[in-house]
């Protein structure tokens, strides 16, 4: 099962479980942040079945395009 969508953490709440309100292109859902405890408002996380499973690395996010640029210039 692999559908996970990137969303921006808006707020973090600690109750019984650490959760956050996460915005996916304007649609907001409460997501459990227990598995990404370092996530802060402004960070992007990948959410799967109500859980954040990873923080999105901005640095690596560009690698899909930089790889393309590299292979396009390679003979």
């Amino acid at each position, binding site marked *: *099962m*692999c*559908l*996970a*969508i*990137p969303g*921006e953490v808006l707020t973090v709440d600690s109750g*019984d*479980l650490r959760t956050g309100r996460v915005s*996916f*292109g304007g649609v907001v859902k409460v997501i*459990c942040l*227990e*598995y*990404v*405890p370092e996530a802060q408002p402004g960070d*992007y996380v*990948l959410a*799967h*079945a*109500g*859980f954040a*499973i*990873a923080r*999105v*690395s*901005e640095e*690596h*996010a560009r*690698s*899909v*395009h930089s*790889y*393309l640029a590299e*292979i*396009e210039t390679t003979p």
Partner: protein
Amino acid sequence: MKYVDEYRTAEGGIAYREAIARLVTRPWTIMEVCGGQTHTIARFGIEDLLPDAVSLLHGPGCPVCVTPVEAIDRAVSIASHSGVVFCSYGDMLRVPGSDRDLLAVKATGGDVRVVYSPLDAIELARRIPDRHVVFFAVGFETTAPGHAMAVLQAHRSGLTNFSVLVSHVLVPAALERILSAPQRRVQGFLAAGHVCAIMGIAEYEPISRRHRVPIVVTGFEPMDILQGIHMAITQLEAGRAEVENQYGRAVRREGNAHARAAIDEVFEVGSRAWRGIGTIPRSGLRLRPKYAAFDAEQRFDVAEVQGRESPDCVAGLVLQGLKKPSECPAFASRCTPDAPLGATMVSGEGACAVHFRYRRHA
């Protein structure tokens, strides 16, 4: 949407199409492992962008497809109990069991509900203490941390009206099985990016070495898949066989330690039956004895349910990449999405359904 739209551009599609065409000097067969990746390939028409020399085989990474028919029968049996609220991901509702599916149970009065998250099932159990809530815990490693959290929550709160029906499978064992088949066609893998986001990359290295096969951990957007294919073919053309990470924005080498700790606390590794393939040792997860109180199989005494499969269904061979859907005599005649013989035709990502829907007219 950020981190989505930028990986779905026409320019990117054209650029990768040309790059892959320049790269390829001979035929290659690559398997994408995860059902979500198969979905992307079908939805965006990615195979149209590949040269004829590159064949994609759709692998067994669709839990809907590999969930054994006995597990569906157990689910149907439990869901038919009055007093039970049976919660499941939407994907599982139309998978055929020996007799019927969960949607049929719902249509005839069973309380079957689609939920987005296992925590929704926990919340439901808290709200309706006089009913027993069962959650169908199906999936690969990606869903396991969520299921673990649900069990831990139930344990901490002392919930007595909640249990899980577990049917978890593990990817590495499936890859080993595919690679060990004597007639195997697969020469390179796109590994399941979100599974690796949880589990890390290390367990794929011995597989890659032992079988001399490139494994590229790949994401789910169209340009992720295209980059993954380009990286795999680059290795194949150069005679290399390594594990590489295309999906760096989500996957770290060590994976997610917190998630793995939760999985380890709640589950233990055991052998599992894979629909159409058979039992593979050390290929699944089951609840540890400490959490047996939450095991729906024991609670409802359905462990001994025996499933019945259509003898005409070759889903297992399709899942292992040993047969193409079009090579099945029942394909598109006796077996269609409306009247499926096996799970690979029911699931939107099943190789047979994908072939039926997207390739038939092209």
